[in-house]
């Protein structure tokens, strides 16, 4: 449905606002704790001895002796 310009102008202040300061801080807190938990789970994986995602290949050799 279309919103008319004069309708918007008659709304009480704040009703159409995106984020107030409190909401913004809450969001930041959630995001930061998410990042922190991610880090912690990374540390736990390391402690549990989980391997990094890459697997060392078989059948190769160092090739420093080759030219080019």
């Amino acid at each position, binding site marked *: 449905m279309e919103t008319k310009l004069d309708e918007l102008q008659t709304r009480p202040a704040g009703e159409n606002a995106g984020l107030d300061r409190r909401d913004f801080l809450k969001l930041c807190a959630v995001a930061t704790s998410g990042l922190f938990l991610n880090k912690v789970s990374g540390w736990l994986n390391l402690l549990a001895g989980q391997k990094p*995602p*890459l*697997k*060392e*290949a*078989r*059948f*190769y*050799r*160092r*090739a*420093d002796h*080759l030219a*080019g």
Partner: protein
Amino acid sequence: MQHVECLLCPRHCRIPEGGRGDCRVRANVDGKLFSLVYGKPCAVHVDPIEKKPFFHVLPTSTSFSIATAGCNLHCKGCQNWTISQRPPEETDNLDLPPEAVVREALRAGCRSIAYTYSDPVIFYEYTFDTSVLARQAGLLNLLHTAGYIEKAPLADLCPELHAANVDIKGMTDDFYHRMSRGTLQPVLDCVLALKKAGIWVEITNLVVPTWNDRDEDIRALARWVRTYAGKDVPVHFSRFWPMHELTNLPPTPEDTLARARKIAMAEGLQYVYIGNIQSGNGNNTYCPDDGQLLIARDGYEVTENHLVDGKCERCGTAIPGIWK
């Protein structure tokens, strides 16, 4: 700069630190070579074994089929180019370590695991580790490969394998060079090494109009198979669909495939099939001794099976394959 030389396939890529091999999935990190696709398949399907295609291995069973991104050949007409000609960053990958593959295969009621779609050579470590666990769990290990692999890694893998379908794309180096940026001899060597190791082998030849569809192309392939691999090695002439860099070509006409089958049988091959075509004689297995229809197929579905303990029910001729 610490270079490494990959010895897995005949390309022998010499990879600088931070670089990747030609297959896009093996990388030099700090002077060590790593697989970027271990446990990271981009294709996981439960398929009829007839789709692999294996026509002489456990008919009507299903095969847990996996592939990762990448390939060490670059066929202009690749039928799976959307995964084979892509680095792993450009495909949707699952986290499925070897033990999970085996667990899921058993859960789905599959009798085998197929390493297929792109090429298991380039996800060698994943194939190898999964094969070991699968064998222990009583599953068969099936390879569908272009056979572009070095002798040593193949020899290591052979004890874990049960069956392999090898693509022989053409019969000249020139063809391999133009179509796939590869060479012929390693592929033929791979077929013979598999046979020598006692692995069940079937051959697939993708018949591409104007590229390898002349009588002499088909005859050369059939003669080589009969002479070196054996007249009882099944050969599948598979229909090409216009794709990747060959969208200018038509699909392989059915007549061409029928002609290929006729030529190969006239050369003495006993089990010649036509692939990617829904029905017809080219889908069926016949007894080489009395012509009795043994297995009738409609697409990937087996509609009749007259094998009794792997033998022709009429004359008792043993039909080679893995039947139970």
